[in-house]
């Protein structure tokens, strides 16, 4: 058994144990599938220990030029992410929260403004355009603000995420760096109630000023009336 195969089996076992048996069943190699299943059985019986989760620590991010170029050819998105992470760690250590950078980079809210300034001014990255900023209500009392950055010059993308708790939903505003963030942040504030510190004009943008609640939070309840007009969906005599 090669090392690669073993790694693959480990991965599948982990997935299966997390409840995603489809991934195991969908695997094409019968040998691998069978081995993975038997391993899962053994683990569940307590004979074997669960294989360690694959981790990529920041130090393992490839530094060599050749490797990087190869990776660039394979997957552009990933390489940008990795590049940003590598540079970010040099400049702002202890600001990255997540360990997998395939799709996004998870940041801490505290130094976000400085990081954003740096992201825009660093010549090798030069993220001059904020494509999209959105808020999302991740369950477990967590709100996330996500930023899709793009560089017109280098034509690469990166996605950044900043998570805050509902009780202390405060994130530094990047309105001054990308002017488009002005309205994006107002919209996120309007919909989810994330407060952007340092925003010059943080008002509701789509809903009226005297609206109650944050509509895109998962536990949102519509208000009964608005200025005497009935809001909820049922009209008299319906259904």
């Amino acid at each position, binding site marked *: 058994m090669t090392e690669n195969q073993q790694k693959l089996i480990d991965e599948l076992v982990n997935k299966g144990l997390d409840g995603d048996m489809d991934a195991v069943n969908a695997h094409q190699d019968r040998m691998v599938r069978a081995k993975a299943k038997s391993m899962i059985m053994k683990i569940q019986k307590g004979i074997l220990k669960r294989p360690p989760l694959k981790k990529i620590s920041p130090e393992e991010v490839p530094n060599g030029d050749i490797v990087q170029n190869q990776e660039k050819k394979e997957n552009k998105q990933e390489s940008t992410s990795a590049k940003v992470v590598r540079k970010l760690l040099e400049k702002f250590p202890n600001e990255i929260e997540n360990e997998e950078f395939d799709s996004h980079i998870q940041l801490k809210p505290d130094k976000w403004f400085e990081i954003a300034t740096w992201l825009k001014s660093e010549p090798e990255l030069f993220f001059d355009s904020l494509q999209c900023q959105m808020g999302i209500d991740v369950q477990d009392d967590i709100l996330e603000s996500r930023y899709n950055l793009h560089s017109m010059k280098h034509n690469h993308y990166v996605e950044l995420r900043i998570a805050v708790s509902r009780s202390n939903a405060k994130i530094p505003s990047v309105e001054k760096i990308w002017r488009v963030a002005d309205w994006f942040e107002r919209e996120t504030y309007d919909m989810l109630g994330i407060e952007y510190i340092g925003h010059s004009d943080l008002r509701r943008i*789509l*809903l009226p000023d005297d*609206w109650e609640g944050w*509509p895109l939070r998962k536990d*949102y309840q*519509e208000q009964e009336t608005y*200025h005497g*007009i*009935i809001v909820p*969906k049922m009209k008299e005599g319906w259904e």
Partner: protein
Amino acid sequence: MGLFTNKFQDNIIVEKLDNLLSWGRSTSPWFFQFGTACCAIEMMAAAASRHDLKRIGMIPRSSPRQADVMIVAGTVTMKMAIRVKKLYEQMADPKYVVAMGSCATSGGPYWQHGYHVLKGVDLVIPVDVYVPGCPPRPESLIEGLLKLQEQILEERPLTRKMA
């Protein structure tokens, strides 16, 4: 005009005058361009070259004071509902309202989860004709307006109403 409305006994002269007045009203209903959403585009299409609302005497006016018919074309939201009411109040009598499209009629596709959508413009202002469709074709809008004209034609503006 308010001076003479519904003040007269029913007789032959009043009836003829009534007919003349309601003919005038039904033949020249100027409409207020109240386009809010998708339906506004179909309203524009109805007023433009191919369908041509001018054929039936309808001319767009942009001030509510000079309009007779308010075509509520599109979704009315809570934020807008207050303004709709205000604009309706600014129109001079006699005034009519056409609710164009399912949004203006009942909230349309947004009736279930649309927390910010008014479920039918008739919650705020009285509506004379409902035109269904999402969006209604210009032909159906014209049909609705002809229905409105029929309705106006049957009015007896001067005759005293029986209590």
